């Protein structure tokens, strides 16, 4: 008791806890700092998402838009129409096949590019800068100049002495695929580059001592290191390609030729050209189901936290197992 009485009065204001119980970083947590960003994301992403689900069940057009909550409720009729009586399934097929095709083509280009700049040589920095140019150019710019190049009288037909209508009809599918490949391969390149950094010098030495030729070394020593980063790159690339709105929109304009009627543009046309808002929302939700597959894989594979309470996700552990197993 005497000890408490002799304590200076200022110290009694703060309760002194036995040391070690509350870590310093837990004492004052400025959780309010999460509020501005959190509220914005809630108001402009989450709330509209829910509104979108609701709109999908309304018969909403430009006349009822201002009082959208009093528009006639039609339940799942929009979904039924989207699936049975609209080009939605056709668009899903086009979007998904384009995404897979384009990603499959970009992977070898990206890996080759990463391998080609891995060793030092004079001018490597310049080559690396050039490699990223297609990725850095805004998609609307890329769309604009490829549109000019692909005109019937344009430079592509002039060079190859052909007469193909690249911006109409069935050739437009291949035109879009080619332009998408051109702009998106540097992403695979970047992630492969990150994978190549993980190869230790000792591994190179072991391969060299064993007398491996360049192809054997690439195939059995280097490629296994790229499996993890590449699976991630493939998932993200597929996701981006499915959701690509700008490139087809700029390249072909509205209305799109039917062979490149991709999902994002289809929902856009349904709402802002034909003003079938309810139908468009239903289409968007249906298409989310397709996006959800790569999205789910992505979320499982990404490491959320490297803190003390971190636990690698199942996908993460699988990637690690693959990497260590393949490297061993």
């Amino acid at each position, binding site marked *: 008791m005497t000890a408490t009485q002799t304590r200076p009065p200022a110290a009694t204001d703060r309760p002194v806890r036995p040391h070690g119980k509350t870590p*310093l970083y*837990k004492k004052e947590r*400025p*959780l309010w*700092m*999460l509020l*501005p*960003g*959190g509220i*914005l*994301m809630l*108001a402009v992403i*989450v709330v*509209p*998402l829910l509104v979108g689900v609701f*709109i999908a069940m309304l018969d909403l057009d430009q006349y009822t838009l*201002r009082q959208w909550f009093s528009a006639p409720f039609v339940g799942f009729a929009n979904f039924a129409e989207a699936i049975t009586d609209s080009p939605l399934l056709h668009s899903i097929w086009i979007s998904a096949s384009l995404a897979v095709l384009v990603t499959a083509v970009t992977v070898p280009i990206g890996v080759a*590019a990463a*391998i080609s700049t891995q*060793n030092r040589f004079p001018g490597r920095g310049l*080559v690396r*800068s*050039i*490699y*990223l*140019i297609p990725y850095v150019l805004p998609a*609307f*710019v890329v769309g*604009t*100049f*490829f549109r*000019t190049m692909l*005109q019937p009288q344009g*430079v592509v*037909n*002039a060079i190859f002495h052909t007469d193909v209508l690249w911006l109409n009809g069935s050739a437009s599918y291949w035109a879009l695929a080619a332009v998408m490949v051109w702009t998106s391969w540097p992403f695979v390149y*970047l*992630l492969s580059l990150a994978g190549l950094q993980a190869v230790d*010098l*000792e591994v190179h*030495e072991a391969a*060299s001592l064993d007398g491996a030729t*360049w192809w054997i070394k*690439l195939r059995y020593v*280097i490629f296994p290191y790229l499996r993890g980063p590449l699976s991630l790159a493939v998932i993200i690339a597929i996701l981006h390609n499915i*959701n690509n*709105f*700008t490139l087809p929109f*700029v390249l072909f304009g509205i209305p799109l030729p039917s062979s490149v009627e991709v999902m994002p543009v289809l929902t856009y046309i349904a709402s802002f050209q034909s003003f079938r808002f309810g139908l*468009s*929302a239903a289409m*968007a*939700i249906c*298409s*989310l189901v397709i*996006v959800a597959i790569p999205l789910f894989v992505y979320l499982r594979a*990404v490491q959320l*936290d490297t*803190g003390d*309470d971190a636990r690698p996700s199942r996908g993460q552990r699988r990637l690690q197992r693959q990497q260590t197993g393949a490297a061993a």
Partner: protein
Amino acid sequence: MSAFTSSRTRPTATLTESITSQGGARRHKRPYDTDVTRLLPRWLLITVIAVIIAFIAVPVLYILFGSVNSDVAVARGEYFPTEFTLANYVNIWSTVALGTGLLNSILTAGAVAVASAALAVSTAYVLVRFRFLGRLTFLRGLLALQSIPGTLLLLPVFVVFSNIASATGVQIIGTRWGLFVTYLTFALPFSTWVMVTYLRGLPKELEEAARIDGASSTKILTKIVLPLSWPGIVVSAIFAFLLGWNDVLFSTIMTTPNTRTVAVVLQVLGTAQEGGAVPIYGQMMAASIVCAAPVVALYLVFQRYLVGGLTAGSVK
């Protein structure tokens, strides 16, 4: 954080080095870098680089050549310009409101960059340095929100904004503020994620020392975390800027002729050409270069940070 910088750090004593060091001077003449770690034979390396650079350069040079060529010559399908003219760069400003578009884009995207970096750094700081209920959910939510397609949200955002307008009388659609709020929100998940990965790499000790000295969390954030995390802040600001600059989806719907961003103005230029009798392809190429120039300049200046930030944002 940067994929490029880590290539510089190499193990000091290695097998090859210890072997070659017995040979004395040879070690300096032939760094192991060009030897054991070589991935491709020389001929193949040169072929791969040449093919990829040609693949990139042919379309890119086409814009450059087309922008100094006459409209008619580009329409004929010429690759190399037969006549040199800078008239396209002069005419684009009067053909469409390119200047207004540039101004709108710079104002909107610039404001988005600043605001999103500020919000991202404070949000990421709390997420990285403090433990609280719902923290992992927040992180997971960031990733999920980042992957939601814009086309899914375009219509609902439009409906919500037009309802706010009819309820309060404050017009949002068609103003720069509407675009600003939209881009800011869509930039936040990725910007925050970039900052989260960056702040994780910073040592805790400085902040703990400051806390022992009695600094508040706000003070620690402004006096210690901010000065240390400039590279990360620059990256997240630039990504936010690019999101605003490159967007076509929202800006075609949510702008009026006065608030159009440069992306929409370029589309208008494209359709103007289709209506008229004289093709203005040369001007389109010139306008494309004007639209791409700020982005390419940003990239060249901050290249090192951007590459690392992009990989960190998606890998970790």
